[in-house]
């Protein structure tokens, strides 16, 4: 029983981590309708920036982390300015192809800037787990989970209540209408990329704290995909719940099914969920349903 609770809690927290990465997806998708294949690479790039600031330059955490966020924001802005603002008005498909190019580019950029070695990521959150009775919880995931929930509700409030957020939601709905009301679509998309890059860096810190850092970490971008799909690409707060569901299912499947089938089903299972969602409800649980007048 105690094992079960352990799996449940850890699954949930991993799920929240996925949710945080998925938020990066969702924010960019909402503003630009671009499905960003390079989300995992943004996470890794953010990770390397943090590593560079904190481990390589040796800045204290309270200086290094804010600087890393600023650097990530600038990087996000740069990506939008260099690639996507030129493509305004082109087909969405073209932009999605660009994100694949971006994926390759970022990988190359990391090689050039930071070298090919596996680096050890600085320990941001203390390594000793939080122990409640017999339950063991990794500290980074616990703190990360709390941060994710706060960020999730914060963003949701921002997009539905504040004026700047509503502007961005209008852009998410219809670029032309937003433009006709005097909303700068370019600026909204740029801001979305900044937000996406910052969220990815935050995800990198929680995900990588005390772990080793190399390209393989970009797989988290793929793992976040089922979460974004389950929630629906427009829903910010819904991502939290979807993350919990995917995380818990994955945790339990890994614990109970892996030994039976000989491993790895836990990693595959979220994608099975993803396929099923695509069959039965392509707009996700909380996504914008296609409203059509007949």
């Amino acid at each position, binding site marked *: 029983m105690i094992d079960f609770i352990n799996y449940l809690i850890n699954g949930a927290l991993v799920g929240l981590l996925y949710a945080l990465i998925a938020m990066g997806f969702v924010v960019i998708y909402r503003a630009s309708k671009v499905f960003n294949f390079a989300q995992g690479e943004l996470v890794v790039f953010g990770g390397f920036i943090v590593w560079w600031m904190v481990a390589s330059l040796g800045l204290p955490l309270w200086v290094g982390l804010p600087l890393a966020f600023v650097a990530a924001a600038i990087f996000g802005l740069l990506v939008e300015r260099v690639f996507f603002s030129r493509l*305004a008005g082109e087909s969405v498909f073209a932009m999605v192809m660009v994100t694949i190019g971006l994926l390759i580019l970022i990988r190359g950029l990391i090689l050039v800037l930071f070298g090919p070695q596996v680096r050890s990521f600085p320990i941001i959150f203390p390594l000793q787990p939080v122990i409640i009775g017999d339950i063991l919880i990794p500290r980074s995931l616990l703190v990360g989970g709390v941060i994710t929930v706060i960020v999730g509700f914060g963003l949701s409030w921002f997009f539905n209540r504040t004026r700047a957020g*509503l502007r961005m*939601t209008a852009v998410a709905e*219809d670029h032309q209408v937003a*433009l*006709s*009301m*005097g909303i700068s679509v370019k600026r909204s998309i740029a801001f979305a990329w900044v937000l996406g890059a910052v969220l990815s860096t935050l995800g990198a810190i929680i995900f990588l704290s005390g772990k080793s850092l190399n390209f393989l970490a970009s797989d988290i971008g793929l793992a976040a995909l089922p979460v974004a799909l389950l929630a629906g690409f427009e829903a910010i707060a819904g991502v939290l719940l979807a993350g919990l569901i995917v995380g818990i299912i994955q945790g339990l499947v890994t614990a109970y099914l892996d030994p039976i089938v000989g491993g790895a089903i836990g990693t595959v299972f979220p994608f099975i969920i993803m396929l099923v969602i695509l069959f039965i409800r392509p707009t996700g649980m909380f996504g914008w349903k296609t409203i059509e007048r007949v």
Partner: protein
Amino acid sequence: MLELNNVEVIYSDVILAVKGISLAVPDGKCVALLGGNGAGKSTTLKAISGIIRVEDGRVTSGNISFDGKRIDKIEPTDVVRSGIIHVMEGRRVLRHLTVEQNLQVGGHMESSGREVRKRLDEVYDRIRRLAALKDRVTGYLSGGEQQMVVIGRAMMANPKLIMIDEPSLGLAPLMIDEVFELLKQLKAGGTTLLIVEQNTRVALDIADYGYVMENGRIVLEGAAEDLRSNEDVREFYLGLDLEGERKSYRDIKHYRRRKRWLG
């Protein structure tokens, strides 16, 4: 005063949609832009608001000015800021947002949240129907209600001039009357209107001045009452003959229109 001088619009560098038109919309007046499908009416509005650029179109010659300032080279955002708002064809509500959120988005240029609230109350006061619907998701509203929402949304920006593209499109006759009643109120309140319509009767009813477009050119213009009694307009757009009898559109010899205007 909005002025267009020999404006020419080209889409995708090849399609000449507007072939050098000039028109003027004086302050506080209502001007109607009439004409059949594909005449270039919507394109003209999009050229004024600047939306044309995201459709791969360009104003290639002529100039557009509002209150003496050129607006054909500036960003759509700045056009709105200068006081012109464009209500696009087809009731483009933000479908997944509520009525109130739609209106709030319309008022996004106000300086503070309190100002937005104030404008919101004004709009609710003008369009009572919207106050009752404020928490409804706009995608599920009826066509007439959606038209009210987009007009209300335009009012939120506190514009000097509202350009409306086909407000009567796909609405029931009673609803059309209601929409135009609202437009009349707006006009009475001092807002300048530029209306694009296919429904010539209702448009000439509210307008002070009208232009008729065919094939990207203005073929006829005049005060609304003159247009109403113009032989060609009566025949081709109002479906009446000279004595005021209803005439079947089937009997209209459209080649005559072509000869007279397009030749």
